[in-house]
């Protein structure tokens, strides 16, 4: 060992100790750091490691289906493919967005905008849907390339499909991508989700939607899914069986082709709507796919307003279909007798104003006045009864207020009163207003559904029901018509006579083996025309034509139904709306005679 010392420089002894110190220091520093990371903050890092690996993803719940009253499908779900991005898995977002633009042909600026818009609404490590409804071409392209683009995901979502498209467009409405307000208002909605926007899809959203499930995914660093297990099972939305009959609805829609208007068929005994058609319709599937700006403009600028459900969203002056109600009110008065005759010379004078009847009927009693729709008779009733009684009675009979059907945007129509006129026009109610009111002209506006409901009540013995669209809902909120039994019977008979009698205005409706009653109406249009070319006389002529009304009921041994048809600018009620209802009765009552087996084979 002495030799060793000789060999070393004196400083090397010191250096050796220093090196020993280095080893000790290495041990202490690294060991302390290990302790800090693994023991002191171990739980924290364990959580971080789990966050790396585990992701949660929603499982889409299938939306409830729509079926008609026989169980035939009206709206189904089909898979649709959307392109989504997981930001945290995407190394180069700018480049990836460019690639997505290349795949889908969507302009890059739009994609950037969409990405910026959505990123606030999507949590980290969740799919942010950028492009919905990929076409099959795009899908195959993306699927082949996606492995080279980490973060890009193809997401399968259920998508709504309306099998009959425009036939049911106003009843079902449509779903479309939830917008920002809807997303903000409803915590159950995620970016890229569809939500009901109109019709039953809107009104029954909470029932139809169901609840999303949750699954936990184990992923690797590139976001590849290794394992998954379901934490919460999705709950599918409830299927809805409509009271509507698919065949009837389709038939009516085809009958109404080329006409603008509305038809409502109601089961008078239950208040269930059997058909609700508004024409023109629109293809509600377009909204699901994401409607283009041009398609939207076309729909909105179409003067026939295809988006509007005319049976509840438009109110029209009732014209002569108001007369049964007037007659009923008169019958409720002890001072007025139905047998009393009034002479109709074709006009009626009030002060120095002359009110016209559509023809000179001679001496008419109440029954004849209804059957032949004599205005003069009702002018004198209007003068006798006055606005206060008429409007109160109308409201109680279900006009001028919402029926409460489960559809959005229902109009209440209008039954004018003195106060209303003073407020609206700053003018007193005048005698002439009473006369106009009596024949359903002037300010009064009703919806086709309100008229159907009233007709149904006349047919079913005086019960006003809240119209229902669902098969399980029957006789909702019954309210009695404020009509005495005799009144009801009288009106009922008068409406039958209108069909059966030689001079009845609704003669067209006569149907074998079925008791049919009706009342026509021809409502004068005092409305601004939509824009049109001044030099197109045909167009001008169309927009000035009267609206044609026909309310009707049909009764046989096993059913009582009420039907209303309104044809906008159709001319007279009898000639324009008559054939429509005629077709409906033919369809309903001739189909019924077929054997059930034959009917089943037709499906």
């Amino acid at each position, binding site marked *: 060992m002495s030799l060793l010392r000789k060999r070393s420089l004196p400083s090397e002894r010191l250096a*050796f100790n220093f090196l020993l110190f280095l080893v000790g220091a290495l*041990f202490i520093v690294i060991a302390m750091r*290990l*302790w800090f*990371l*693994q023991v002191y903050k171990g739980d924290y890092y*364990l959580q971080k*490691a789990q966050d790396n690996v585990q992701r949660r993803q929603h499982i889409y719940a299938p939306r409830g289906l729509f079926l008609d009253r026989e169980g035939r499908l009206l709206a189904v779900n089909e898979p649709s493919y959307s392109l989504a991005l997981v930001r945290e898995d995407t190394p180069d977002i700018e480049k990836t967005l460019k690639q997505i633009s290349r795949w889908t042909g969507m302009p890059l600026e739009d994609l950037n905008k969409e990405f910026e818009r959505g990123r606030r609404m999507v949590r980290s490590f969740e799919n942010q849907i950028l492009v919905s409804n990929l076409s099959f071409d795009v899908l195959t392209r993306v699927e082949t390339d996606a492995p080279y683009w980490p973060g890009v995901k193809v997401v399968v979502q259920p998508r709504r499909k309306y099998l009959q498209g425009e036939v049911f467009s106003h009843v079902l409405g449509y779903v479309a991508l939830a917008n920002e307000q809807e997303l903000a208002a409803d915590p159950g909605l995620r970016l890229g989700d569809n939500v009901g926007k109109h019709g039953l899809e809107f009104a029954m959203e909470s029932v139809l939607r169901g609840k999303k499930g949750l699954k936990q995914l184990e992923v*690797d660093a590139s976001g590849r899914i290794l394992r998954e297990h379901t934490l919460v099972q999705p709950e599918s939305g409830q299927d809805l069986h409509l009271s509507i009959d698919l065949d009837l609805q389709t038939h009516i829609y085809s009958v109404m082709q080329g006409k603008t208007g509305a038809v409502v068929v109601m089961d008078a005994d239950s208040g269930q709507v059997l058909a609700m058609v508004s024409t023109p319709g629109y293809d509600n599937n377009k909204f699901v796919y994401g409607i283009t700006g041009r398609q939207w403009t076309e729909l909105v600028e179409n003067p026939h307003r295809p988006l509007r459900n005319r049976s509840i969203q438009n109110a029209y002056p009732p014209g002569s279909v108001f007369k049964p109600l007037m007659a009923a009110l008169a019958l409720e008065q002890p001072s007025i007798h139905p047998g009393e005759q009034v002479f109709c010379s074709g006009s009626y004078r009030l002060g120095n104003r002359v009110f016209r009847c559509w023809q000179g009927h001679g001496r008419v009693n109440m029954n004849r006045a209804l059957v032949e729709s004599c205005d003069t008779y009702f002018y004198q009733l209007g003068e006798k009864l006055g606005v206060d009684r008429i409007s109160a009675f109308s409201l109680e009979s279900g006009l001028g207020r919402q029926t409460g059907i489960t559809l959005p945007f229902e109009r209440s129509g209008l039954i004018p009163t003195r106060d209303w006129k003073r407020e609206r026009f700053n003018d007193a109610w005048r005698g002439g207003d009473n006369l106009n009111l009596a024949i359903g002209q002037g300010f009064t506006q009703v919806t086709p559904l309100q008229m159907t409901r009233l007709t149904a009540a006349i047919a079913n013995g005086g019960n006003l029901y809240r119209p229902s669209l669902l098969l399980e809902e029957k006789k909702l909120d019954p309210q009695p018509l404020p009509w005495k039994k005799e009144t009801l019977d009288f009106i009922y008979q008068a409406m039958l006579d209108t069909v059966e009698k030689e001079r009845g205005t609704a003669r067209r409706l006569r149907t074998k083996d079925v008791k049919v009653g009706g009342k026509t109406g021809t409502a004068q249009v005092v409305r601004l025309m939509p824009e049109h070319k001044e030099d197109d006389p045909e167009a001008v002529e169309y927009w000035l034509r009267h609206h044609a009304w026909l309310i009707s009921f049909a009764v046989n041994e096993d059913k009582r139904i009420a039907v209303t048809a309104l044809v906008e600018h159709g001319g007279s009620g009898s000639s324009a709306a008559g054939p429509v209802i005629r077709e409906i009765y033919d369809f309903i009552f001739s189909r019924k005679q077929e054997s059930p087996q034959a009917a089943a084979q037709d499906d």
Partner: protein
Amino acid sequence: MIDRQLILHMNWAMLALLVLLFAIGVLNLYSASAYRIGEETTLTPFYSKQLVWGLVGAVAMFLIMLFDYRHLKLLAWYVYAVSLILLVCVHFWGTSIYGAQRWLSLGFVSFQPSEMVKISALILTAYILSSIERPLNFRDLGKIFVIAIIPVLLVIKQPDLGSGLMILFLIGGIVLYHGIDKKLSKVLLVLIPLHMPLGWFFLHDYQKTRLLSFLDPTQDPLGSGYHLIQSQIAVGSGGFWGKGFMEGTQSQLRFLPEKHTDFAFSVFGEEWGFAGAIILLLLFCVFLYQILSVSQEAKDRFGSLICVGVFFYFFWQVLVNMGMVLGLLPVVGIPLPFISYGGTSAMVNFIMVGLVLNVSMRRFMFKS
């Protein structure tokens, strides 16, 4: 050449540590080369390659032990020259991986001259210093500096900053051990820190971002800070007892980058926890201590300086690699000896140990 005496004086403790560390390394690589897809696990054959390299390394180590290390004095300059030539060759004909031109292909196998130069520079420095029996003056230091700086610049040029700094630190370590003239050392203490900031301008951009992201890894968690963050998560999530062999999610699911090379220790830390990591650390420290004691037992200063060089060779690697994995130091591509995958570096590790064993087994021999 080798007699019974030598075998008797074999440093068995050192050999045992070597085998243990290497075995741990291969075992850990087995886990690190696996990744899970679905329920299945796929293996890439890093661990088996490493095993082959280890065997080749063991043979090389044995060859190194066969002859008296003092013969290296005669070879020192030649070996040094050859490795410099090879480094220049790499510059012209090397193959590049990840943009760094470090490998020289020999047809069936490729190797890194930058690893070889570590050995040759070490031996040459030890040889020169062993003949100087006084603290280094300015001239001596200049000589050593020139010997060191040529390979360092060539290696950094590749670019391989880690290896370059390694050579510099290794030689610096030997020089410090040997001792520097007092006045000179005072001057250096002032001058070197002054020149450090200049180094910034020699760094590549990716090296600068690495340095910056070390200072604040959260600034770019998916970019350059990713390695640092994920590595700490891996080690930290191991907890006290670890997640178990092959059970590390960070490594198996590939959140850890470079998990079989520079970040192999984080795989180990994740799967074996604090308990395992501290044992591995302890093994390294005992290993380093063994090298130091051999340096003290060596029969001449050349042998002792070789051991000090080898000590620094391992010390810096352990320090820098563990420091990097644990987030104490910026990301520098330095492997952990015996644990990280790497053929040439495994070879060099074995040869380095061979040198120490050589010195150790001949500690009682007198000049022949």
